[in-house]
């Protein structure tokens, strides 16, 4: 080896340092978020910010030969600040109610607020901020945010890969409702009918029986209602489950065109009983039927799959006494049915997982959760009887529709507002419980049930 070659070797070894640190950190952050490791993910996003500090909705060009242009992640936005704020929100969701959680939510809210004030008003930021204000019970800020959203829209694009699949789906559902262009060509999400501003009619929302008449039955509509009041799991008891199912049965028959013979009810069922009921109902389905599924009870998410606990389940990590959500739905999918499922199930976070994280990848399915991740389901007293906030709102809205063709997304929005509202004559949740918008798989926003 010549002396000059040795000199060159030494020169080459000088000053080597890792490059493109932002990309490595950001991708590590996404991987950690995908595993539900929110604290680790936030650390990586903060590292990314240290290397490249500003969120950008433009494609990021990677280093490469000039003759071979390379675009990072197929042109996805670079959103470390949004992602760091979102992970802060998810960290809060994993903490029990209390000062620590409040502090984390406030931090996340401040970070998102800062992004919006910098002109980066995105649907992801607005949606997450709305969830935070709801959890904090900050109605004033929530209303102000909604007013801003209505006026300005969401012109900025963020990378939503860090968000849970459920929330991504919810945001995509919101995007599907864009209906008008506001000033300066900015798209504005129009609040659907059913918002507090759009309410019409004098009917009391507390008692659907005030509304007279039954809706014409539709023989192609079926329903499976599961209400498991009892549970041997820690915090698994839903004391109002059985009564909610009874009330739901009545509502579907009176106001939504379901034939009583087409509604099967399971109360305090084991996994085998739920399984048998689903199979028996599916056996009666014609092709392309509509199936309404309501579950009130305990549920868990294990290894990315949702399970509904039977009343004999004693261990939240053992699935032998549970039925998988996909197993429950499978018999109906096999008959080509459209499934509209609603879950009044507590979503406590266990080892970073919670019920409802499992989004069905196939089949025509709508999945709506009665509460947000990390939250239990709650009840209110109506005429001395304990009623689930979620099911009560559903019944109220179905009573208002009085139709055998209820569009899912409009229905969901009305349930959302019904639960957030609440006064002396309309005991909604008062903001103590917020549902998630339906995640739609191969269904459009106006698919009816």
């Amino acid at each position, binding site marked *: 080896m010549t002396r000059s070659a040795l000199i*060159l070797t030494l020169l080459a070894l000088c000053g*080597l*340092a*890792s*490059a493109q640190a932002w990309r490595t950190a950001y991708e590590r952050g996404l991987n950690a978020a995908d595993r539900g490791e929110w604290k680790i993910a936030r650390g990586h996003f903060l590292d990314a910010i240290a290397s490249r500090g500003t969120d950008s909705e433009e494609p990021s060009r990677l*280093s490469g030969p*000039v*003759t071979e242009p390379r675009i990072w992640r197929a042109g996805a936005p670079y959103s470390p600040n949004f992602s760091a704020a979102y992970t802060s929100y998810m960290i809060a969701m994993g903490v029990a109610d209390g000062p620590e959680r409040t502090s984390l939510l406030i931090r996340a809210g401040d970070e998102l607020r800062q992004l919006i004030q910098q002109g980066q008003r995105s649907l992801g930021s607005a949606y997450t901020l709305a969830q935070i204000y709801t959890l904090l019970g900050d109605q004033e800020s929530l209303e102000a945010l909604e007013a801003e959203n209505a006026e300005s829209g969401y012109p900025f694009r963020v990378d939503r890969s860090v968000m849970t699949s459920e929330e991504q789906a919810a945001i995509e559902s919101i995007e599907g409702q864009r209906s008008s262009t506001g000033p300066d060509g900015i798209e504005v999400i129009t609040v659907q009918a059913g918002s507090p501003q759009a309410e019409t009619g004098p009917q009391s929302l507390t008692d659907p029986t005030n509304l007279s008449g039954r809706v014409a039955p539709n023989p192609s509509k079926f329903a499976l209602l599961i209400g498991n009041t009892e549970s041997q799991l820690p915090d698994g008891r839903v004391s109002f489950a059985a009564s909610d199912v009874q009330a739901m049965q009545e509502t579907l028959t009176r106001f939504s065109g379901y034939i009583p013979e087409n509604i099967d009810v399971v109360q305090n069922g084991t996994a085998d009983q739920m399984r048998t009921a689903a199979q028996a109902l599916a056996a009666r389905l014609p092709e392309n039927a509509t199936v309404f599924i309501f579950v009130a009870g305990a549920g868990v998410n294990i290894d990315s799959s949702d399970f509904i606990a039977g009343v004999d389940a004693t261990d939240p990590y053992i699935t032998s006494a549970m039925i998988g959500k996909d197993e429950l739905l499978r018999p109906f999918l096999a008959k080509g049915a459209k499934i509209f499922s609603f879950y009044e199930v507590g979503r406590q976070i266990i080892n970073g997982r919670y019920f409802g994280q499992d989004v069905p990848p196939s089949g025509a399915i709508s999945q709506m959760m009665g509460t947000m991740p990390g939250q239990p389901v709650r009840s209110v007293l109506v005429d001395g009887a304990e009623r689930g906030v979620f099911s009560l709102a559903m019944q109220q809205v179905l009573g208002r529709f009085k139709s055998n063709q209820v569009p899912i997304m409009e229905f969901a929005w009305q349930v959302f507002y019904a639960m957030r509202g609440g006064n002396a004559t309309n005991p909604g949740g008062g903001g103590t419980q917020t549902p998630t918008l339906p995640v739609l798989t191969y269904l459009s926003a106006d698919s009816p049930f």
Partner: protein
Amino acid sequence: MNAWKHFGVGALVATPFAALAQIPDLVDALDAGSRAMGMAGASSVTDGNTHSALNNPAGLAFIIEPTVEVSARNLPESDSTITGDVSAPSVNTNDSSTGKTAITHAGYAFPFKGGTLGIAYTLAGYIKDSRSQGPLTDAAFNVSGYDGELRSQTDMFTVGYGRESGRDNWGLSLIYANADARLSESFQQNGGAFVDRTIGGSGNGFGAALGWQRPSADGRSVIGASVRTPIELDGAAGNVYERIPGKASIGYTARMDRDSTADFLVYAAQLDYYFGGEGSAIFDRDDRFSFGIGAEYSYHRWNARFPIRLGYRYLPAGGSGFGDRDVLTYGLGWRPMGRDFSIDLNFASDLDGGVTDTAIGITYRPGN
């Protein structure tokens, strides 16, 4: 009698060839058929492919997935007539031909320890001049039946490593060179001996290359520089080709995107300096500059990219007996979208009346 005894290598050193010689000078500057060949090699120091292991190891840093490249091209040959005295003949090149086709590059690069490791074989220099005689003497003897061949082939085996460091790419290669350089001739001294001799042979040596690149922040331009050390050849080759010249290069490549389509234009310029090759008996190399300019238009249609290339290169002769090279280059590539391979076809036409060289290169990325 061994006429070789009457003949010393020193005599060959004195004035090996007269100024009429026109052997295309590819002793140390053969383009092994990279995509840059279609652009007159003007982007070779700023490119990122397996050829970078030799041209500029910093370019290996651009390779982010396992990549295999193979190039093949013709190896041009010439025919010359020598006159005067065999010890210091005048050489007049009569004709050149495309010669045989051979694999001139095979390389494999893969991500390694935060950078990219590249291993490559490159044919870096080649001449083959077949000789016949005109009026020719060997000292006091007239010569008849002269049959000679001057050839040189330089193979370089390279292991290089390149990686990003901050805004820059840096790279280092270790080079093992094997050369076969010789003059073979046989003739009859009229009234004297039959002479059959070969001067030179095989030899090898080691060298290194250091490279640097700086892409612009928007990725639309790159400036690059590299230096390769001269390589001392031992063995019999050292008798005629003592030292492979080093090479220093600097170049700039930039891209202009079209707003309305995915097409883009790339233009490049590169300056090379060959140095440190003096002192060889036959293949004595002068220090010299060479430059190339080129452009490539990347045309997007039918779910593929079709780069169309054009360039010009000037390479002055590196020593007595060799001719300058004025070369017009052009080429075409095919890069189907979403596929794991691409193909390049390039040409180099000698504007001084020589042959048109042809090269084909195939790139394969098994990870796609």
